[in-house]
């Protein structure tokens, strides 16, 4: 298997795996966060503004992990330095 094929296969497989595995954790975490927020809203409805604001801030922090995985996946597909390197090598040959 020459280097072009190897880089292509590795990039494509890793890109798919990154976003697939990387979305599991944040999804579970956000589900737990919203469930706990709903419970505390039911217990103390007059603190709704504080609870909602803290919930959104917490959700954004959890979401960032999924965003990091998405950015790595996009880099592997669209801005892959290894792919550019082997392509320029093959073009100059």
């Amino acid at each position, binding site marked *: 298997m020459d280097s072009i094929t190897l880089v292509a296969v590795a990039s494509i497989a890793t890109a798919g795996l990154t976003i697939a595995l990387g979305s599991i954790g944040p999804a579970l975490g956000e589900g737990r966060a919203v469930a706990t927020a709903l419970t505390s809203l039911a217990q103390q409805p*007059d603190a709704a*503004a*504080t609870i909602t*604001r803290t919930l*959104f*801030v917490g959700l*954004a922090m959890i*979401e*960032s992990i999924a*965003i*990091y995985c*998405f*950015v790595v996946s*996009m880099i592997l597909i*669209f*801005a892959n330095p290894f792919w550019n390197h082997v392509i320029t090598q093959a073009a100059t040959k």
Partner: protein
Amino acid sequence: MRLSPDAMIFWQHGFVKLNGTIVFTWAVMFVLSAGAMLVTRRLSTGMKRSRWQNLLEIIVTGIEQQIGEVGLCHPRTYIGFLGSLFLFIAISALGTVIPGFEPPTGSLSTTAALALCVLVAVPFYGIEERGVVGYLKSYIEPTLIMLPFNIISELSRTLALAVRLFGNMMSGSMILAILLTITPFIFPIAMSVLGLLTGMVQAYIFSILAAVYIASATRARRPKPKPATPAEA
């Protein structure tokens, strides 16, 4: 497949490029400044006021209240910086309803610049509030061993701010572009509405996180303040 507005070149002369990020950033700045100047030309303090002045007052008092709830005393000193952050990111997100407009926050350069502004603002406000020695002592706050971890956390917080905003805005426009090549009409509109919602939430998150970082840098060592009563909120 365009990854960011950096690739839209409007004009080029040698190595000086006028790309989409610069043009749309200046467009947002122009809209914000011109709108503010037009509305505040004739301010009235009575009961009769124009609806635009009303809108601006709602926005300004809303941001001031949010900054106060985060724990910063004298929100007026910080509202210039934090309010501008929120309004810039919010207007860039809302502008996607205009065809042809790409949000400048979809480029890593813009979000990195905004995160660097926060990185500079935190020590600035910290030193202004607590003095140089008082602010630097906060880095060795629990014990001296925590010094490298505190420094690393400062840098990683900045990186997280930049990548979070960039990832959210870029994914919104990219999903829209991909869907437009697949399904005709209804589904891309639904995703565009979702993109608006995430844009506004990310604007709020960015400014609230900046406020929390500034609050943790300016908070002097004193006994825990009493919890906010409903009358204060």
